[in-house]
């Protein structure tokens, strides 16, 4: 086990705590994919045949 690499990993995780965790509300509004969230579109077919799209955002694994 390379200790220097492990410490660098620890520091990187600290940086990610700052950079990669973002709440769903910002993802919904701005699709901040790099910040730990993802959105996808769900279609719903209306009675007249038209399609309504709903955006679903969630915190990534």
């Amino acid at each position, binding site marked *: 086990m390379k200790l220097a690499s492990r410490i660098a990993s620890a520091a990187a995780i600290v940086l990610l705590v*700052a950079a990669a965790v973002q*709440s769903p*509300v910002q993802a*919904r509004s701005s699709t901040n994919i790099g910040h730990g969230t993802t959105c996808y579109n769900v279609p719903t077919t209306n009675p007249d045949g038209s399609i309504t799209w709903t955006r679903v955002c969630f915190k990534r694994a």
Partner: protein
Amino acid sequence: MRRLIAACAALACATAVTAAGDSARFDVEAGAGREDSSSPLLRLSEDGALVQIVGLSRLAGPVGRLAVDASNDWALTGPLRLSLTAHGETRWSPSSRSLNLGAALAEAGLRWQMGTGSIGVSPSLLLLSVANRPFRAADSIRFDWSEVDVDGGMRALRVESGRYRHAAEYLDLDADVRSISGNRRWKFPVAAIESIEIAAGVRNERNRRSLPDLSNRGAHASVELGWKLAGGDWTANALWQVSRFRAPGPDGLGVRRDRFLALDVTAEWPLSQRLALRTSLATSDNRSQPAIYNNRRHAVDIALVARW
């Protein structure tokens, strides 16, 4: 990484213009703000001990941001639909390179409609760079069931399996990740609070380098409120997350445990049919054992958003 982000942005444009149907979506967002994180900066001393660098324990500075996002959807046979999504984002700070972040995402999806609900399967690839250096490539496949009500309410459940791969200096972080998460949204068109959404999930990260101190399990829950005020759409969100690692870290660090709380408020005002002004205020606090992972983050941001 910048080439990859540019390629992803180009793919985003191509995805959006391939078909100009109602499902095509193309957003560009340019923002500026300020961030402040209290994360300690760490270094390995000559005798191998972990040292916190005094005087460099804070990352703070102005941040610029540019993001391009596009998606499109095509009807295949019967209730089957194909979707493509691309996203490129770069964030830079003139005062601290460590605040720089790059992200590129490509995702394909097959969705089977069943009445008001649908089942989706979506493979994706996410590339991340931190401080101008490649950091992580995350490929995953997600299965979801999502259902939307006529009034805008929504239910969704997801199962995702992914793999983290890292640049050479961070290979120890390579991991397999599995998660289950869900959302439930209620809409109240005529009430003061227009929407309430709750979300929750659990995840398990298993280190691929047989380093149990980097394997961890976690859970999160959040609640979001939406309302209209002063001509704008407002949302407020609270997120609670806990993580527990499986074994003590190196250099006598002990077993890591994180408790993370984030709060944010965002408001958006339409400027024209396709242009909007958005501002957000966010704060978060990560309390960790050991304390070297403690972090408090504050961020304020204002952005112009263009949608096609």
